[in-house]
């Protein structure tokens, strides 16, 4: 099915949504926020800001939350994908962005694609990888599935789902035992090597082979190639981050870069590939509960003071709730009102039934979106927005930290309005007379507060086809990679050393047993996207709807044939989908997408076991059984 755009504001009356004027809808939205905040205090409010919208919208959104409402409860769907990457990278290097640029992948010697089906999920990034391969680089694919990415690899390491840490540890141990670690770099730029060395010691190649299912020789090959390379890139996607111990997974990969010195130099680095057009920018703009714009620490009193004087309002000196905690807060009655901008958690969150139940407990839900999504259908007020990427001015920030200009090409349909206009109208009704004369004025305010964006004027962004942060000066450009400081001779300029992490293996929470013997993992297909709201609007000849993908061996064992409807059941839910036979899967592994939730609600199967540090759910590992349907009678 395809969705129609929202063209009029909607308000709920006698239980149903009806069309309303902007005036009425905005009044109703603002009144609900005011009522709840007056009754329960500012922390009963939560905002989910839109990772699809512009940096400018995200800046105004978090400012609305912090200044107009007075809480830090602002987060985005960043939480469901790459928050662990941000948490892991910032814990080690003090900055949550990927360290390299796309061009460096073309100029490197070894590329490791870990848990990343980039060939299908990030096709244009993969073109840079292909250029690298054509230039002579060796590529290693680490993935439970033999993906399109793996088909281009020198070596495919098909590991069991959720055994990334044992594999990374075994690679590290092999590097250390072969004497291939970079002792000078470790000595100068890192801390905690001795403890790390001790913690990987039990993970011999044989031990790792038993746990991960990857042959010892392949692990050894990866270890030696990565450590011996002059330059090496380590890229990962949601195969690493959608686990209950995701931040540990990320740290396990960072450990490998620290061990070999593959970070902070041209061609050597760490690249998490972001899943949404502006999920990097949303976090950079402070639309997360623990950071101010410019990814500045909210617990730092001096930084807070700068923002307080610029905004003329006090900022709470503590972290707000993240998405996962917001959902818990709804269940416990602590969060009573929610402002969702461009998010569809009812269909995108793990254990989707529980999520819908929690949103239903809210006193006042405002949804601002371009479609009447499943989530919007539950709202008290629905505000029709413009589509940021083609109906608004502003900027997005991509996976290589490049800030690029977004331009208005179309008029929004009907009465749909720009996100920033809507936010300002709501702020005005809540006593803050905000007016921005266009996105550039918002951007210039952000530049005045965020050192890493200061040098990025709109004019310069246009001239240079985007600029990567950090960019503190209008007269200069920084190198395309981060953390070059780690290679400085002068200890002062080198700054804080990067810590190794001591990590333990923790298998997926949803255990396999006789009742649920198969491992379900989820992901994307080339021509579809997330909950399918956007991508259902074009006639892709490749689209074949939701299927459950099984390897030929499992299909034969279960006695099911291609195209046959089967029942897939987890401990939380049950769905019916047709079988698709995929020889790229290994026995015991089942794959589904989440692109067609209106037909098959795959996220009713997934588990809401979340990473305690970053709050990301374990979408990649559920335990299921697949059953043949029996005809009634």
């Amino acid at each position, binding site marked *: 099915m395809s969705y129609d755009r929202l063209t009029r504001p909607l308000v709920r009356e006698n239980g149903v949504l009806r069309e309303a004027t902007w005036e009425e809808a905005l009044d109703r939205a603002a009144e609900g926020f005011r009522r709840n905040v007056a009754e329960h205090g500012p922390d009963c409010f939560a905002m989910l800001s839109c990772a699809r919208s512009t940096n400018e919208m995200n800046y105004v959104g978090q400012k609305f939350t912090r200044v107009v409402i007075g809480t830090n409860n602002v987060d985005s769907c960043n939480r469901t994908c790459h928050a662990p990457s941000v948490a892991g990278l910032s814990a080690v290097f003090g900055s949550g962005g990927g360290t390299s640029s796309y061009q460096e992948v073309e100029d490197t010697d070894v590329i490791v694609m870990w848990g990343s089906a980039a060939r299908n999920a990030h096709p244009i*990034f993969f*073109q840079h990888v292909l250029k690298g391969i054509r230039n002579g680089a060796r590529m290693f694919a680490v993935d439970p599935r033999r993906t399109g990415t793996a088909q281009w690899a020198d070596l495919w390491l098909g590991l069991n789902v959720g055994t990334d840490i044992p594999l990374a540890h075994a690679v590290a141990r092999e590097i250390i035992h072969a004497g291939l670690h970079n002792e000078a770099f470790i000595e100068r730029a890192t801390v905690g090597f001795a403890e790390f060395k001790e913690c990987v010691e039990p993970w011999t190649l044989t031990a790792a082979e038993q746990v991960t299912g990857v042959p010892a020789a392949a692990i050894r090959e990866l270890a030696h190639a990565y450590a011996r390379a002059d330059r090496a890139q380590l890229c990962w996607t949601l195969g690493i981050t959608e686990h209950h111990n995701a931040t540990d997974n990320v740290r396990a990969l960072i450990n490998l870069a620290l061990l070999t010195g593959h970070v902070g130099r*041209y061609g050597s680095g760490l690249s998490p590939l972001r899943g949404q*057009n502006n999920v990097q920018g949303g976090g950079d703009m402070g639309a997360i509960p623990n950071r101010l714009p410019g990814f500045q620490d909210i617990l730092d009193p001096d930084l807070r003071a700068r923002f307080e004087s610029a905004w003329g309002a006090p900022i709470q000196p503590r972290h707000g709730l993240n998405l996962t905690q917001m959902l818990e807060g709804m269940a416990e009655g602590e969060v009573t009102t929610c402002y969702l901008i461009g998010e569809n958690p009812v269909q995108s969150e793990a254990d989707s039934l529980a999520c819908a139940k929690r949103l239903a407990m809210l006193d006042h839900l405002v949804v601002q979106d371009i479609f009447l999504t499943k989530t919007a259908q539950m709202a008290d007020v629905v505000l029709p927005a413009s589509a940021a990427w083609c109906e608004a001015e502003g900027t997005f920030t991509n996976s290589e930290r490049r800030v690029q200009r977004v331009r208005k*090409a179309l008029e929004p349909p009907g009465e749909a309005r720009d996100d920033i206009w809507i936010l300002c109208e709501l702020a005005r009704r809540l006593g803050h007379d905000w007016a921005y004369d266009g996105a550039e004025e918002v951007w210039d305010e952000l530049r005045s507060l965020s050192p890493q964006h200061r040098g990025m004027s709109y004019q310069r962004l246009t001239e240079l*086809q985007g600029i990567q942060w950090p960019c503190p000066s209008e007269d200069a450009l920084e190198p395309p990679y981060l953390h070059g400081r780690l290679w400085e001779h002068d200890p002062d300029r080198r700054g804080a050393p990067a810590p190794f992490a001591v990590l333990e293996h923790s298998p997926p929470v949803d255990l396999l047993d006789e009742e649920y013997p198969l491992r379900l993992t989820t992901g994307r297909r*080339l021509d579809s996207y997330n909950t399918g709201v956007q991508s259902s609007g074009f006639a892709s000849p490749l689209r074949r709807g939701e299927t459950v993908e099984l390897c030929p061996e499992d299909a034969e064992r279960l006695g099911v044939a291609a195209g046959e409807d089967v029942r897939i059941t987890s401990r939380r839910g049950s769905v019916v989908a047709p079988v698709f036979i995929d020889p790229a899967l290994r026995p015991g592994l089942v794959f589904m997408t989440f692109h067609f939730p209106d037909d098959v609600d795959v996220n009713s199967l997934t588990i809401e076991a979340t990473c305690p540090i970053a709050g990301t759910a374990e979408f990649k590992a559920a335990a299921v059984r697949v059953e043949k349907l029996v005809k009634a009678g």
Partner: protein
Amino acid sequence: MIPLQPPRRLIDVQIDDETVRVPEGATILDACRAAGKDVPTLCHGDTLTPKNACRVCVVEVEGARTLAPACSRKAEAGMKVGTETERARHSRKVVLELLGSSVDLSTTPRAAEWNEEYGADPARFGPDAATVEQPAKVDNDLYVRDYSKCILCYKCVDACGEQWQNTFAIGVAGRGFDATISTEFDAPLTDSACVYCGNCVEVCPTGALSFKTEFDMRAEGTWDESRQSETTTICSYCGVGCNLTLHVQDNKIVKVTSPHDNPVTKGNLCVKGRFGYGYV
């Protein structure tokens, strides 16, 4: 270890008595453009390795026996190039006549202008001249292959193959005048390896490959480039940050291209970026 490119030196080249300075490794075409010369090209792609297929860009290099294709011949220090000599102009004229007599160049940008400029008369071979005329292949909702407009420049094959997309859905089938661009066994696109990135359409110089929207609007007579605006923005799907140029007519997106000099895309997109705009 893969060596990084050292910085390039600059060399001086003489183009029609004017000296221009270009980086070592630049082509004669680069030098001509630096000198402000308007040399026609068809098979040359700014994102592709030169194929030397069409010969419409030939120039005269002093001391060389044959004419040189400007798009692929590297400029050398001290080289003297004539872009508008009698021989070069005559060669271009014949190339345009041979192509124009056998291929439908009606949607090739600037073809009519070049015919006039070089005095080319494609009709001079008479009404019985062989042509590649054939029905357009419309086998999916995203793009159309009209090989009666194909000059066999191979750009689509290179873009689909090892130079960019690495999908290898199309190649050259047949020999000589009967050679055509084809999927394996001439199967419909929907039965081929095609992933509908449209990167072949992006590089097609004649309109033989066109988006279904453009093909349909041309058939209806509603395609009007003078009423279209072009706005470059950023794709709304994954986080790679591909630059899209939206071609808009009457507040509707009618075509999506990508800037060829962009550091993220180099002119390439995937099926979502190229076609996934239906919802706005």
